[in-house]
C-alpha cells in the first residue's frame, strides 16, 4: 500500500524511540510532570511506532528521502 522508504535500522531506532516516548508520555507521566507535553510526547511515540510498522515515513515521502537500501529511491525525481 505504501512505498517502503525506511531501512530496518531506521525502523529499529523508531521502535526504541517510540516505546520510550510512549512510556514517558502515557505510562510514567511523573517524568514530564506536564500533561499536555506528556500527551504530545506519547503521540510522537505512537507516530514513530506506526511508521516503523508500515516501513513508511510520510514526511520522508514528502521530502523525497529514503533510508531504504535502493539508492535510486533516495533522491527525489
Amino acid at each position, binding site marked *: 500500500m505504501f512505498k517502503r522508504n525506511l531501512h530496518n535500522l531506521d525502523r529499529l531506532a523508531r521502535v526504541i524511540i517510540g516505546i520510550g516516548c510512549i512510556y*514517558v508520555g502515557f505510562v510514567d507521566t511523573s*517524568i*514530564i*510532570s*506536564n500533561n499536555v*507535553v*506528556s500527551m*504530545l*510526547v506519547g503521540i*510522537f511515540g505512537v507516530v514513530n511506532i506506526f511508521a516503523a510498522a508500515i516501513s513508511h515515513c510520510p*514526511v520522508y515521502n*514528502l*521530502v*523525497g*528521502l529514503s533510508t531504504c537500501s535502493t539508492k535510486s529511491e533516495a*533522491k*527525489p*525525481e
Partner: protein
Amino acid sequence: MHLRLKLFLGIVLFFTIALCFFGYIAYDSAVESSIKQENILLKDLSGGLTNDLASDIGTQPNEVAIKSWLTHFKSPQITTMVFSDDHQIFSDKEQKQVPQGVMQQIATSEPSGSISMQQVVYIWHSRPIPGTRYTLSLIHSQNQQDARTFLNALAMPLIFAALIIIWVAIWTTMFIAALLEKLSAQKDKLQHQAMHDALTSLPNRTLMQDRLQVAMHTADRQRTELALLAIDLNRFKEINDTLGHHCGDLLLIEVAKRLELGLRKSDSVARLGGDEFAIILNHVEAEDVKAIVEKLTRLIEEVMEIEGNKLFISASIGSAIFPTHSREMDTLLQYADVAMYAAKKACVKYASYSADLEEGSREKLILSNDLRNAVQAGQLSVNYQPKINIRTGAVIGTEALIRWKHPTLGFVGPDRFIPIAEQTGLMRPLTEFVLDTALQDLRRLSDQGYTTSMAINLSAVSLQDPELESLLLNAAGKWGAQPSQVVLEITETAVMDKTVHAMEVLQSLDKLGFKISMDDFGTGYSSLVNLRRLPIQELKVDRTFVMNMLTNEEDATIVRTIIDLGHSLGKKVVAEGVESETVLQALAELGCDIAQGYHISRPVPFETLANWLKTNSHHTQADPAPAPGLASGWPIAAKPS
C-alpha cells in the same frame, strides 16, 4: 538536497539557540518568582511574629527577653535575627546557618531581599518590633541544590516540549524545502521546454536566435567571422511516410546526436522544426566552413540503424557568413535558407550564399505571392496546341497549356510557376482552373461540330490529391464532356516517383474512362514492368529527342526504340517538338502515330485555334490523306457544322 541540508542545519541551529535563550529566561524567571514567593511568606510570618513578640514582652523590651522569646520559635530553614537601631546584631548563637557577613548586610540593607553566597541563597524579611527599637529579621537560607530540584520539575516538560518543537520545525522546513525545490525544478523544466525542442532536446528557434544574436555581437566586437548553417534532410518525408513517424522521430534524434558530435563545444546546433536544423559556427573563416560541412555530411550520411532498418539519409546544407553576407540576424537566417534551398534544388550537398541565389529566390517569393491571386485576377489563361495523326493528317486532339501573364514580369512559363504551385499547395486551384477552361472550350468546339479530345497535364502533386477524381468528374459533368475525350498527361517522373500510389490513382482514372498519356517519355527511369502494368494509352516522346533526331544518331535511335516499344506494348506514340517537315516525314517513316509541335501549330488561344481549325478543316479523319506536311494546312477530325 543541498538546499535541504543547509536549511536543516540552519533550522537546528536557530531553534537550539532560541530554545537555550528561552530556557535561560524561564530559569531566571522561575528563580525570581520563587524568591518573591519566599519573601511574601517571610513577610506574613514576620508580621505575626513581631506582633506576638511585642504583646508578650510588652513592658520589658530588652535583648534578653526577646532572645528568650525567640527560642520558642524553631525552624530548620528559617533563622531569626534581631538587631537594634544602631545595627547591633544579637541572635541565637545556636543558629549558625547564616554567616555573620550576611547578617551584617541584612541589618544594614532593605527590609526585604535576597543574597546569594557560597551556593546558598539567603532570603529575608525584616520588620521592626512594635514598641521597641529592635527589628526582627527572618532569613530563609535555601541551598541551591533545593532550587535545582524545583527547576528539574520545570525542566523536563520544557526539554521535551522543545524537542517536539524542533522535530516539527525540522520537518516543516524540509517539507517547504522539498516544495520549493519541486517548484524550482518545474520552473526550470518549463524554461527548458520553452527554449528547447522536445524531441531532440536541442535548442529551438527562439534560443537559437538568442544565441545567434549573442554570437553576432561577440564576433562583431572581436572582429571575427561566424557562419550560420541551415540544414534540411533530404527525403525525410518519405522515411516518415513509409516507416512511420516513430522511425522518423528516432532518425531526427540520431541526426541531432551526430550533429552535436561533429561540432566544437563553442558551436551551437538547434532544431528549427520538422527536419530543419541550424548551426552557429563561432570564430570560423569562410574557407573553413566547407571542411566543417563536409565533416557534418559525412556524419549524417553514415548508415543509421533504426528499429532494424538500415537507413541512408543525406542533407542539404546552406551557409551564410556574418558579417560578409549580412550584419542583420533575420537576413542572415534568410540567406542561409536561400543557400540551403539552392543546394537542394541543384541536388548538391552544400551551397554557400551568394547574391545570385537570392535573386532566384526573391523571384520565387514574388511569384508564389502573386500566384495566389492570379486566378481571381484573370491573369491565367489556357492555350491549345493541336495534335495530328501522322498517317492521316487529321487533327485528333489538342493539348491545353496554362499561361500566366504577370502584371510586371510579363509572361511566366509553366516551368517557372508550376514547381512553386506544387510547393505552396496551389496546384488544386490551378488544375481546377485549367480543367474548367479547357473542358468549356472543348464544349464550344463540340458545339461548332468538331469532335476532338482535350489533353490536360497533371502534376505529381495532383496525383496525390484525394479530390482529383471528383475534380475531373465535376468538370466533365459541368461541360458535358465524355471522360474518353479527356486525355490526362502525366510525366514519367511523376508516375515513377510514387509508383505504387500512382498506379492506384491511374487505374481508378482509367476505370472512369479517362485516357492516360505518359508525358516526357525517355527522361525518367521507367520500370518496364510498370510500363506494362500502367493503364496508359499513349507514350509521348520527349521533345529533346525529337528535335535533334535528324542531327543526332543517338536521339534518332532513342525515338525509334520508343516507337517500337510503344507499339509492342500496344500503345500509341506521340512525338512532341516537331518543328520541321523533314522531322515529320522521318517520324512517319518510323511509324510514329501522332505528332505535335511548332511545325503544326504553336500553342494558341481558343479563338485562334477555332479559326485554325476552320481553315484546316478540309480533311476529315475518314479522309485518307497522303503523307502529311502539306503547306496548305492540316486536316481536321471533325466536319464543320
